[in-house]
């Protein structure tokens, strides 16, 4: 009996030894690769540190002539540089260091996975969801290149290449929807972007807490009104017979007004300004949040030096939220060609179609609302649109990274 276990033990030991030898061999094999990565990490960190040192040297040169407050702020800058560099280095060490550890057998992926199995358990349902509802539809875009028939399915329908796209480019709707999409979103951008920033700055300079709270409560409120209700409100108020606009018009002129909702020229103003009404308060939250990061010391010091409130807004508050403004602007610029259909569709009627047909409503009408739905054509329009969006947001982000230091990714 004892003999047998001894034999088993020795066999086991032999097995382990072979395993260990294999592992050692593998590690030996991986060593050059690991060393290469390590060298890369070291080089990257060295580069970062060199950059930091150069900047610090620059600041130190300025320090010799600076005095008082400026001197203090320069010292602060050096501290910030040091901290940022340290954080960046740590991040590199963490993400790439794991690879080195794995190659050298200090950590194993299998063990890491096993240790975190409960986290993967959490992820199962969300991943299944995202695959079914977001990724499974994606291959469906190939119907843009087909003459799709439901009975033939996505992969069985006849391939027609770029015919749908060519048809769209030659369609009389093409210039109209592109123009309307651009006009509506650019107008929204120019009218809607500065107001929340200004509003946040104003709100931030108020001292009466109660008044501030009431103001925010009231200005955030329209955000919670649904699109259907908003358009309904618009229609009621602008109604030429019983609405506020109609009543005032009739009171002054004695005649009935023309319906502004059917007016081609008025459409964009109504669309944009009702949007501004609904969202400016809500959109200011992000700037209010950014403004709360302003140190009160700065304001106190400026006040003692005799700066007026307006000067403090201009030279303290505004510079603080500048990075936030840049990022929000990038986001908005990247979305210039993606205009949602919800509100436009609800505000549309046959009379204002010339100004109100945009890409997304056309996609809906051609694809689903029409008597003879054309799935392929509709998909090609929306694919064209999403490719433009993808290019737009990436290039805008690229520009922002080149020009300034802020970018989304």
């Amino acid at each position: 009996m004892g003999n047998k276990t001894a034999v088993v033990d020795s066999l086991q030991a032999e097995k382990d030894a072979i395993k260990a030898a294999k592992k050692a061999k593998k590690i030996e094999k991986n060593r050059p690769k690991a060393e290469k990565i390590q060298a890369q990490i070291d080089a990257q960190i060295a580069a970062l540190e060199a950059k930091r040192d150069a900047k610090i040297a620059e600041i130190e040169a300025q320090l010799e002539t600076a005095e008082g407050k400026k001197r203090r702020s320069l010292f602060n800058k050096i501290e910030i540089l040091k901290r940022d560099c340290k954080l960046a280095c740590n991040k590199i060490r963490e993400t790439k260091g794991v690879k080195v550890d794995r190659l050298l057998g200090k950590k194993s992926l299998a063990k890491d996975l096993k240790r975190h199995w409960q986290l993967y358990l959490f992820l199962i349902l969300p991943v299944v969801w995202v695959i079914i509802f977001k990724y499974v539809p994606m291959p469906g875009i190939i119907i843009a290149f087909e003459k799709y028939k439901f009975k033939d399915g996505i992969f069985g329908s006849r391939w027609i290449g770029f015919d749908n796209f060519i048809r769209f480019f030659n369609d009389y709707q093409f210039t109209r929807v592109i123009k309307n999409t651009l006009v509506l979103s650019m107008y929204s951008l120019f009218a809607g972007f500065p107001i929340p920033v200004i509003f946040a700055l104003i709100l931030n300079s108020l001292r009466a807490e109660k008044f501030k709270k009431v103001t925010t409560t009231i200005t955030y409120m329209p955000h919670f009104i649904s699109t259907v209700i908003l358009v309904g409100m618009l229609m009621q108020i602008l109604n030429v017979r019983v609405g506020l606009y109609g009543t005032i018009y009739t009171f002054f002129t004695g005649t009935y007004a023309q319906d502004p909702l059917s007016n081609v020229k008025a459409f964009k103003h109504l669309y944009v300004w009702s949007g501004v009404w609904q969202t400016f308060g809500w959109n200011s939250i992000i700037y209010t949040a950014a403004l709360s990061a302003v140190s009160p010391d700065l304001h106190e010091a400026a006040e003692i030096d005799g700066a007026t409130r307006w000067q403090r807004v201009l030279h303290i508050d505004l510079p603080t939220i500048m990075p936030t403004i840049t990022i929000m602007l990038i986001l908005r610029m990247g979305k210039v060609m993606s205009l949602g259909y919800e509100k436009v569709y609800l505000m549309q009627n046959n009379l204002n179609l010339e100004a109100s047909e945009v890409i997304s409503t056309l996609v809906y009408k051609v694809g689903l609302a029409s008597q003879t739905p054309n799935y392929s054509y509709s998909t090609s329009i929306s694919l064209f649109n999403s490719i433009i969006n993808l290019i737009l947001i990436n290039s805008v982000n690229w520009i922002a990274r080149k020009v300034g230091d802020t970018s989304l990714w």
Partner: protein
Amino acid sequence: MAKTKEATQQVNLEKEAAKKAAQEAKRQKKLAVLQKHVDVIEQKHAAKVAKLEAKKAGLDEIAASDIDHKIGALERKRLADINAAYEKYGPKKKVKLPLADKIYYTAIYIILAILLLVILYPVIYIVSSSFSSPLSVATGKVVLWPVDLSVKGYVEVFKNPDVWLGYRNTILYTVGGTIVNIVMTLMCAYPLARKSMPFKGAFTFLFTFTMLFGGGMIPTYIVMKHLGMINNPLIMILPGAIGVHNLIISRTYMQSSIPGDLLEAAQIDGCSDIKYFFSCVLPLATSNIAVITLYYAVGHWNAYFTAFIYLTSREYFPLQVFLREVLLLSQVDLEQSMEEGSTQVYGLSDVLKYALIVVATAPILALYPFVQKFFVKGVMVGSLKG
């Protein structure tokens, strides 16, 4: 001439003196009020202390020291109360503003007043119209306040079976959908917020990529058709089970607001990841949960396009679809009132619209002040650095 000047000076002086006296009287009055408040606080404090002292008399040392502690706490409370009273009723320091600041503040108060007016007026107008009589609405008499107070619009709204049906469906979709949203989002955000998990970046990308690119309307529609989701109420809940934006907000919150040391300490104590989620992450993420709950609930309450595309039976329609029919397409049934004359009916349909707007928006607006204090925090942690 000189005499009159002197006289006016005299009068001015007298006026000033009177003004000063009035101011002094006002100050005295304010001080008296303050003194009164302080007295009340002192009296209450003295009464409480006396009670405790009386209790202390017959007790042993340990219990007595306990009561001493209580008396100490009372003393602290008394000081805090008096401070609060001074803040509230005491003489206020007046800071004199430079002229430039005065102009600045006047300007911003004017701007704010205009903004508030612009926001509030349409809302007040609609609420007032909903409470006015149909005739005064039809003849355009309502300007600010209700004319001929009546609730006919509301009566008509609640008579409408579609409104009840829509309300029921919307509440079901909102409650059910929001629960699914919260569970799924937190389940997904927690692992993605953990630093050490392998393939974390890949999983995050799997979700964020869908923000940039998607299949589009028709391919999604075809997939839903194959899944049997056409005219299925589940369509209102499942496809939007996770909002990627809210997911990022939650993940960032968990990363930045829950200290990493806590996880280490829990792991040393042998706490599993699942247990850590329920006993540490969830209780610490309540303000984040409040914010995303509101976001999701508002989204469900206001959703109409999904229903519009995928649902065909009226019994499944949410409120917003019925609202569209009544408000935008003016498809409204008013048989009962037909015999009352045409102006009456015309006005009635408008009052009904106003009342419907109020009825459909009130619940969500009632919810939001409770969550308002979390907004800035929720947006701040979730913003930008995605």
